[in-house]
C-alpha cells in the first residue's frame, strides 16, 4: 500500500539489469546524476539509454562503458559544446560502438506521450524536409483519414525502467516535482518500472493543487539522495553548477582524464554523499 523506500544502491540493484532500456529524464533540471553514478558503480552494461538530451550524465555512462545504444534528440553539453565521450563513441567506437536512434525533441516527446498512453506510436507534423527519416527507419508516416494529409509517426518509447530525480516524496512514496518538468512524467509513466530519487522525504508534500504529483502506486521505489541532481539542479534546493558543466569540457576531452575522473569520483566513492565530498575536495 506504499512504495518501498530503499537506498539508491538497493533500488538500482533490485530494478535495473544489464541489457535493459533505461530512461533517465529531466530536461536540464533534476537530472538524476546520483542514479547514473550508481549504475557505473554497479557496472551495468549493454544498456539502451534513452534521453532527450544525453547531457553529462550519459556522457559519463557512455564513457564508462555502460551503454550499447542511445535514443536521443540533442546530444551536446548545453551552452558549452560537445559531449566528448558521446562523440568518441560515435566517431571512434570507444569504449565500444554506440547504436544511435536519433529524433527531434518534438518526436521524442510524442514517443514518450505514446508510451505513457499505451499507444503503439505517436504522431507529429514533423521532420519535414529533413534527413533524419533517412537515417532512422523508425520514422514513418500515416495518412489522415479525414484530410489525406501525411503525418510523421514515431514508435512509442516504453523503457524497462525510468529513473527520475524530484524534490520531495512523502512517506507513502507520493512524489512532488516542481519547476521545469520536461518529459519526466511521460517518461515515468511510459516505463514498466519507475525509480525516483528525491532531495528529501517529508510528512506532507504540501503540493499546490494542479501541480505535478506522481502517486505512490505508480512508483516502484523511492530513494532519498540529497544533491542527487548535482551538477544539474533542483529548483528550490540548489542551482545548476554551470561552472562544473564548463569544467566538464576539459575533464571529458581525453579518455585518460575522463577515466581517471570516473575512477576517482564515481567508482572510488561508495555512494552519492561520498561523490559530493570527493568533488568538494577538488574544488577547495
Amino acid at each position: 500500500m506504499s512504495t518501498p523506500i530503499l537506498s539508491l544502491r538497493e533500488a538500482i540493484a533490485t530494478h535495473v539489469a544489464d541489457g535493459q532500456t533505461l530512461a533517465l529524464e529531466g530536461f536540464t533540471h533534476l537530472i538524476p546524476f546520483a542514479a547514473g553514478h550508481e549504475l557505473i558503480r554497479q557496472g551495468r552494461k549493454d544498456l539502451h539509454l534513452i534521453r532527450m538530451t544525453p547531457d553529462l550524465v550519459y556522457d559519463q555512462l557512455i564513457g564508462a562503458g555502460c551503454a550499447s545504444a542511445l535514443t536521443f534528440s540533442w546530444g551536446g553539453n548545453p551552452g558549452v559544446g560537445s559531449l566528448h565521450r558521446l562523440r568518441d563513441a560515435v566517431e571512434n567506437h570507444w569504449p565500444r560502438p554506440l547504436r544511435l536512434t536519433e529524433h527531434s525533441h518534438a518526436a521524442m516527446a510524442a514517443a514518450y506521450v505514446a508510451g505513457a498512453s499505451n499507444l503503439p506510436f505517436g504522431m507529429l507534423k514533423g521532420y519535414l524536409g529533413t534527413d533524419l527519416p533517412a537515417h532512422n527507419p523508425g520514422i514513418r508516416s500515416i495518412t489522415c483519414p479525414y484530410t489525406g494529409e501525411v503525418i510523421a509517426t514515431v514508435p512509442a518509447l516504453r523503457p524497462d525502467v525510468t529513473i527520475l530525480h524530484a524534490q520531495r516524496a512523502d512517506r507513502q512514496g507520493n512524489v512532488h516535482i516542481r519547476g521545469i518538468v520536461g518529459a519526466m512524467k511521460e517518461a515515468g509513466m511510459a516505463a514498466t518500472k519507475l525509480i525516483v530519487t528525491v532531495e528529501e522525504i517529508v510528512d506532507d508534500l504540501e503540493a499546490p493543487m494542479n501541480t505535478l504529483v506522481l502517486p505512490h502506486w505508480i512508483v516502484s521505489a523511492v530513494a532519498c539522495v540529497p544533491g542527487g541532481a548535482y551538477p544539474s539542479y533542483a529548483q528550490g534546493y540548489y542551482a545548476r553548477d554551470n561552472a562544473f558543466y564548463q569544467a566538464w569540457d576539459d575533464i571529458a576531452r581525453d579518455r585518460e582524464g575522463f577515466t581517471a575522473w570516473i575512477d576517482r569520483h564515481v567508482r572510488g566513492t561508495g555512494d552519492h554523499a561520498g561523490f559530493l565530498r570527493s568533488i568538494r575536495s577538488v574544488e577547495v
Partner: protein
Amino acid sequence: MSAPLPWTSEEMMTVAASRHLWNGAVCFVGIGLPSAAANLARLTHAPNTVLIYESGTIGTKPEVLPLSIGDGELADTATVVVPLPEIFTYWLQGGRIDVGFLGAAQVDRFGNLNSTVIGPYDQPRTRLPGAGGAPEIATHAKQTFVVLKQSARSFVPQLDFRSSGGFFEGNGSRARSGSPGRGPQVVITDLGVMKPQAGTEELELVARYEHTSVEGAVAATGWPLQVAERVEVLPAPSPGELEVLRALHARTREAHSRPVLLPF
C-alpha cells in the same frame, strides 16, 4: 587597418538580430546567440516580447542569460511553466509562435540548416549535438530568424546533413511540402544580413555593417552569394544597445561563476 571598433562583431550581430524582433512578438528561443538577441530586444525596444524556451518556460524574463535551455532562472521568471511535450504540441505545432530563433553549424543557399554531423552520418568526422527542437521550430514558427557566424565552412554549397528545413530546394518547394510556417525570413551573421529572394527563395545579401563589406560576405560564402541591387548599411550598435547587452553579459558571467552551495 583602421582603429579597433568600439564593439565586437559578435555584439554587432547580436544587436542586428535583436532589432528584427518587434514588440509583442512571441518568440521561440534557442540557447546562445538567439537567446542573447531575444533578451536584448526585450530589454530595449520590445519589452513585451514573449520568450518561450523549449524547456517549457513561457513568457520568461530572465535577469541573466541561461547557460542551458532549462536554467532555474527561466522557470522563476516565467508566466507559466508547462510540460515539454505541451510546448511542442499546443504551442509550437499549434501555430502560436511568431518567430523561431535558430542557430546552426551549416546553412545552405536556401536557408536549410545542419546541426547534426560533419561528414557521413554513419562515419562522421564531427558528431554535432543534433537537431533538438529545430526541425519542428523550422516547420511551425510563422517565420524563423537564423543567426550564425559566416565563413566558407558554415555557408556551404551542400549540407552534410539537413537537420531542419529552410526553403528546401527553393522555388516554392517548402510551401508545397505543407510546412505551415513561412521559413527563414532573415539570416543574420557577423558580416551582414541575408533574406530570401522572391521566387527562387535563394538567400541574397541585403545588408552589411559599417565595418564589413559585400566582398567580405561573398568571400565567406561557399556558393556564389546573390547580392541585392541595393545593399543597406546597418547602423552600428547604439550606446544604449551596447550598454544593455554588456550589462546583460556581465550579470550572466557573474551569475555563472558564482559557486553553487549544496544545502547539506
